[in-house]
């Protein structure tokens, strides 16, 4: 019998069944990866195993079997749960050091020399040693996640349950988190259950479980899973076929194709599964813009843009140019100053130093922005939408605010709903929809007035693989059909490759600005863009 045996476990939320009779097993030292779309039942299963939610079925851990949170109490000293959400379990007003003390105390750990040495090691591994006095509320997202993780590791748990510990975390921090995890399981023989949206990360796990609609539909090691989809993976087809999904250099098909086979990646698993469920990824069709305008060759020109928050310099004399019909990726670690930069461009933050011109117009004061407002689209980090109005009402509202005549607005909304694939959800409320749908309809809201430039702040964080694939298709079509310019920030390094040019920010300074191809040339050893990114950041820490 394995150290951890889960059998026929189901979790019900009100009337909804989140997890259907799931079984799994794991042994000491195993890292088990959970992957799957939003709402596939990963979190519910984790909550059930950690004994924080009522469930049906049994869990047995090292011979002790429990059926309810009450029965789980007995082994809670052995368990650690890190729930989903950046900094969710942290107290904003406590410092890093105080968090460690607090978590040690509530776990009743004796603070002897051995513990102190362990604590130092964790701090060092997480790179938080210098920041022990900083309040959690002032940490960047990546640091928060690392702090949450070492707090969860403090009592040397034998069963570690981590729910998307790396979402919203920059690649460098992700790597550090992974190192910590790997070291611990080797030293402590910890069983780790980890869910993730990053496939490069999942690839490193001992075993991967793919969740869909509350069930585990595929499992195995990275190699096994990749093997399982190899027969269905081909080089990208040129033309669209209904039974084929094509994305990023590869095509997936259940029926044999007359095409060259390609080496699959884990992402392929999602596409194959979609095909098995008779779902396809119809190509995005974006219609032409209704009115054509002449566009200056340089859409945005920032020179020496600087922002201070007290003594802290969020953005330090940044020069960035956005050309017409260009997709520019803005990358950087958490807290590097990306969001601040975009907010300065939009006028949501005051520009402390430097000059800015948008669409050929110098921005000196808010008055200069008035006529530009109808030419800029913006999607913020959290897809700011009105949750008490349906998708349709939201869109009509935004159209009205943009003073688009109603008949024209309705026409456009209908068109976008179809083109961006959220037509079936028009009368639903945003809170009822998967993140990927919200994301596409936020884009629609930002496109209603046919802007010349789009500013997108982390539009893909937490969105599942397929939805992200569709999202990027939309962006490329927009560029192609409308000649729109896009400035986008993301933590998915694979997405950097879809950009025409990328700018890297580090601690408020620009450290690289080039096309993806040129960057690859400059880093001949790099296997993926992630490697290039890391080379910039690891260089001088």
């Amino acid at each position: 019998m394995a150290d951890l045996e889960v059998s026929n476990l189901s979790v019900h939320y009100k009337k909804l069944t989140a997890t259907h009779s799931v079984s799994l097993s794991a042994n000491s030292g195993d890292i088990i990866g959970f992957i799957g779309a939003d709402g596939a039942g990963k979190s519910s299963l984790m909550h059930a195993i950690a004994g924080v939610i009522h469930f049906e079925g049994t869990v047995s851990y090292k011979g002790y079997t429990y059926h309810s949170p009450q029965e789980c109490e007995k082994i809670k000293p052995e368990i650690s749960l890190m729930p989903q959400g950046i900094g969710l379990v942290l107290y904003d007003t406590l410092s890093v050091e105080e968090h460690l003390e607090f978590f040690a105390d509530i776990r009743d750990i004796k603070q002897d020399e051995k513990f102190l040495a362990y604590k130092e090691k964790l701090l060092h591994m997480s790179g938080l040693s210098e920041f022990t006095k900083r309040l959690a509320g002032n940490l960047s997202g990546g640091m928060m996640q690392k702090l949450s993780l070492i707090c969860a590791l403090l009592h040397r748990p034998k069963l570690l349950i981590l729910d998307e510990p790396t979402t919203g975390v920059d690649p460098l921090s992700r790597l550090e988190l992974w190192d910590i995890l790997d070291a611990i399981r080797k030293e402590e023989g910890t069983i780790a259950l980890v869910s993730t949206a990053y496939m490069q990360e999942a690839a490193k796990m001992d075993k991967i479980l793919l969740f869909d609609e509350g069930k585990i539909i595929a499992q195995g090691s990275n190699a096994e899973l990749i093997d399982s989809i190899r027969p269905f993976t081909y080089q990208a087809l040129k033309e669209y076929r209904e039974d084929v999904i094509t994305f990023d250099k590869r095509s997936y098909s259940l029926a044999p194709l007359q095409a060259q086979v390609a080496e699959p990646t884990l992402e392929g698993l999602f596409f194959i599964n979609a095909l098995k469920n008779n779902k396809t990824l119809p190509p995005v069709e974006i219609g032409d813009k209704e009115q054509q305008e002449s566009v200056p060759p340089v859409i945005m020109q920032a020179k020496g843009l600087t922002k201070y928050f007290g003594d802290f310099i969020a953005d330090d004399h940044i020069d960035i140019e956005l050309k017409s019909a260009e997709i520019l990726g803005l990358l950087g670690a958490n807290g590097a100053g990306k969001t601040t930069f975009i907010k300065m461009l939009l006028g949501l933050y005051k520009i402390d130093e430097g000059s800015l011109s948008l669409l050929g117009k110098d921005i000196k004061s808010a008055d200069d922005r008035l006529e530009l407002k109808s030419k800029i689209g913006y999607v913020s980090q959290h897809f700011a939408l009105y949750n008490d109005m349906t998708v349709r009402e939201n869109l009509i509202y935004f159209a009205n605010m943009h003073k688009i005549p109603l008949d024209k607005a309705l026409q456009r909304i209908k068109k976008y709903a179809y083109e961006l694939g959220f037509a079936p959800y028009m009368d639903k409320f945003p809170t009822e929809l998967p993140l990927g749908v919200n994301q596409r309809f936020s884009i629609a809201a930002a496109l209603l007035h046919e802007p010349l430039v789009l500013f997108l702040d982390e539009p893909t964080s937490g969105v599942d693989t397929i939805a992200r694939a569709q999202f990027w298709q939309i962006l490329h079509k927009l560029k192609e059909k409308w000649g729109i310019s896009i400035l986008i920030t993301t933590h998915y390094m694979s997405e950097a490759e879809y950009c025409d040019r990328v700018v890297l920010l580090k601690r408020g300074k620009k450290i690289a600005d080039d096309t993806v191809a040129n960057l690859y040339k400059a880093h001949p050893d790099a296997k993926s863009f992630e490697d290039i990114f890391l080379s910039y950041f690891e260089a001088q820490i």
Partner: protein
Amino acid sequence: MRINIIKAYMLKEFKELVRTRLIVMVYLLPSMILILFGYGIRMDVSHARLIIIDNDQSKLSQTLSSKFEHTKYFDTVERHMSETQALREIKQAKKDAILIIPSSFEKNLLKGEKSELGIFIDAAFPTRGTTIETYIQGTILSMAKEVLAKKGVAQKGMITINSRSLFNQAMRDEDAIVPGLIGLVLLIAPAILAALLIVKEKEKGTIFNFYASPLSKNEFLAAKLLPAFLLHSLNIFILFLLSVYLFEVPFRGSFFLYWLASELYILVSLSLGMFISVITKRQIVAVVLTVIITLIPGFLYSGIIMPISSMDGASQIEAHLFPIMYYNHIIYDTFLIGEGFASQKNLLYLGILLLFTLVLFSVGKLLLKKEMK
């Protein structure tokens, strides 16, 4: 119950309270309510603005006017104006009452002939209106009696009322209101704090630290409620000092009883807050619910506005279902009466407060689940 775990959790609570500045509310709110209500509510009428239109201008009418001028109840002005003009001043809310003395007032009174005095009162605020009316009538009649007695007109023996106000000889509003306010304040403030402390973790997500750790329900509750209890224990003294020194309310009873009852009462309030935070999910809902449950009934049944003994059947029962009535009985005793532990009723009420604590706490604890909903 592991003491060091509770201590560690409490330490964290204190740090958070201080750093989120919630602690300001802990001390600001009670004192603010006490001061605002203490200064802002006046049940008796003083400085009512009275116009006297003296059409007689005799010695007797002057005497009458000066009677009004020498009382704290009225701010009097003597004017020569028409009734209409004076009424307009009332309509503009510049004056509260008019007294019109007729031209042959002295002559008629001494002759024993009837003369008619006109009184106009702004009764928009009815209670005040009635009181002002009573005062004016009383002043005039007592003066008339005096004058007539001097002239030997009155022949009958008279009944004089010899009233003794117990507990509050000076009939000061402060003495009557401020102790009752302590009961109101110590009901609202600790309940809000306790409600916030738990629901805050639920809303933020840090409640997972409790769910997923071996911390027991008792330890968690102790860690949450003790800081609130200790912080508000200081309020017992602050409110006492404000009452005695700022409002100069006498303190005649046992301080020990005051302290004991207050600590017990804070426990009642905390248990109520805890109960609310267990059944709610969002901070704002918890706060609003706490305020609704505590403020209005607390005010109604505090005895400030009307004594419980004067309430109707239904209100009378409701008042007994609410802790403030019991506590305020003890508080009024300690400030104004001074029976202390000798009074069986005080002891009984202490017991009832204890019962409130036990029941509310047990129900709250029963409903608190160490799992997600």
